[in-house]
């Protein structure tokens, strides 16, 4: 019988795994409580997952529409909780709802042109007004031009301030996937921003020469 307390692995790894497992269990308990009509449990889930949902939406829809859609996602999730068989998968399940909601948003807004390109641009420019606003919009646009997996992960990291382990735990992705998405996404973003700067410098130089 193993009676020794000398265990495998570093304390840091154990702590990470423990924390992830504990959070998963805690999610399960919260979900169960919500199913029983517990409002505070639902609010706890909201606090825990709002940033993730916000980031996923921000990678797909105009900034001005994101806050309302975050609430929509949670409101849509609540009555469907009963269909969630494995409550420990709540994060991945909610992320899927958020992605679907973003797709619905584009489907619904297309015919009415409620959020036309111009409206989007105006809304976002307004949101990004102030010091560094223009630069932030350029960066956000650059991230949105990346492949889906990269832009979502990068927004969660750079905008929402989540760490890689948090992103993995919340979205249900593996640590390896998140690492690769962050690394490759960042590499592509650097290239885009460098190209953009080069093009901008070339445009400015051309303009100055013409003057």
């Amino acid at each position, binding site marked *: *019988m193993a*009676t*020794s*307390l*000398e*265990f495998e*692995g570093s*304390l840091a790894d*154990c*702590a990470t795994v*423990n924390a992830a*497992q*504990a959070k998963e*269990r*805690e999610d399960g*308990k*919260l979900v*169960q*409580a919500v*199913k*029983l*009509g*517990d*409002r*505070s*449990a*639902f*609010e*706890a889930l*909201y606090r825990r997952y*709002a940033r993730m949902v*916000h*980031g996923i939406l*921000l990678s797909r829809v105009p900034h001005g529409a994101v*806050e309302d859609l*975050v*609430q929509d996602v*949670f409101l849509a999730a609540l*009555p469907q909780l009963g269909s969630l068989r494995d409550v420990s998968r709540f994060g991945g399940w909610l992320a899927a709802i958020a992605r679907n909601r973003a797709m619905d948003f584009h489907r619904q807004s297309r015919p009415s042109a409620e959020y036309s390109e111009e409206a989007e641009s105006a809304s976002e420019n307004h*949101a*990004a007004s102030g010091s*560094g*606003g223009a*630069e*932030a919009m350029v*960066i*956000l646009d650059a991230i949105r031009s990346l492949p889906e997996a990269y832009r979502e992960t990068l*927004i969660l990291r*750079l*905008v*929402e*301030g989540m*760490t*890689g*382990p948090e992103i993995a735990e919340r979205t249900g992705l593996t640590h*390896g996937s998140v*690492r*690769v998405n962050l*690394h490759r996404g*960042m590499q592509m973003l650097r290239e885009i921003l460098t190209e953009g700067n080069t093009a901008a410098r070339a445009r400015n130089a051309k303009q100055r020469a013409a003057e």
Partner: protein
Amino acid sequence: MKGGEAMSKSIEERNEYLWDGTGEPDPEVARLEEALAQFRHADRLPEFPEALFAKPSVIDRFFRLLWAPRLAATALTVLAATACAILLFVPKSPTGTRPGWDVARIEGTPLVGTKWMGGADPKAKLEVGEALVTNGDSRATIAVADIGEVEVEPGSRVRLVQSSDKRKRIALDRGTIHAAIWAPPGEFVVDTPSAVAVDLGCAYTLHVGPDGSGLLRTTLGWVGFHLNGRDSFIPAGAMCPTRAGTGPGTPYFEDAPEPLREALKTLDFGTASAESRSEALRTVLSQARKKDALTLWHLLSRTQGEERERVCKRFAELVPPPAGVTRDGVLRLDQPMLDLWWNALDLGDISIWRFWEQTPASGAMPAVKQEKDRATLKKAR
């Protein structure tokens, strides 16, 4: 090392800051973070409509509870017995609109508020702030909203402190109650003069003596017993004493060896010398069976230094620590590790408590109305 692993390792080394914000900040990443922070989620909690949180019916909750296989058989027995008792002894409750809980007399003449329950009037309503008092030959049952039932033994005094959707709270000033609750964990709370009992889905008996000391015995599920940061978890078949001024003692199974139980009294509430205390601990450790790991787990946080090391060693002999639990972590009372080890006892997932302890029951409720209620009782008599 495979190519993928090598690449992943390389990525890890070069991107620690990008990965988890540790290490030397990558200037470009930091610049992007700063620029993009304005798009971050506002962290405001929206107003969700109350109607969304309509609670499922008692029947729904009952059947959900039944899905927990370990509780099913006992729950059925308890509920069947409760149903029989209700059918036999409790007349149909009036459909009053006053807030409060229905009380049914079982025998004698209990006092509810200022009203004596006699033979001609066997039912009453216990309102928030009122007390139910049973004398030496009277007993009564309280229907705890729609979440359970409390039977009040002779010689008891119970006050209804709170009755809201999220929290049902009574205070047991003295005497004995038997509670059978099928609410979500943490919803039903009992204050006593020396500890607060938080229902975690269970049936239990709680006794409070004239000096405020208490004893809790769990018959189904488990109960959290706490005061001033001192927590005890009492699973089915176990009991836990409590003392005014100290709080809950160390829980033990009812069939634990007598020497172990006696030694626990010394450890929990005694004022013995260091030598006697050490001897008591030796007795506990030597007498402990595998199931008494319940007791040893609690002793980890109630001992210090060399005593804790002895407890930890014996605990590991009885229940090998699961992966992720280290000796150093346990000795410094690392909570996630202690929780992991608790879960290895298979007595119930402690995360239930970790979640519910954030909102419920702070300390025991002061007996604010006690004197006033006593005067009322005297006057009524």
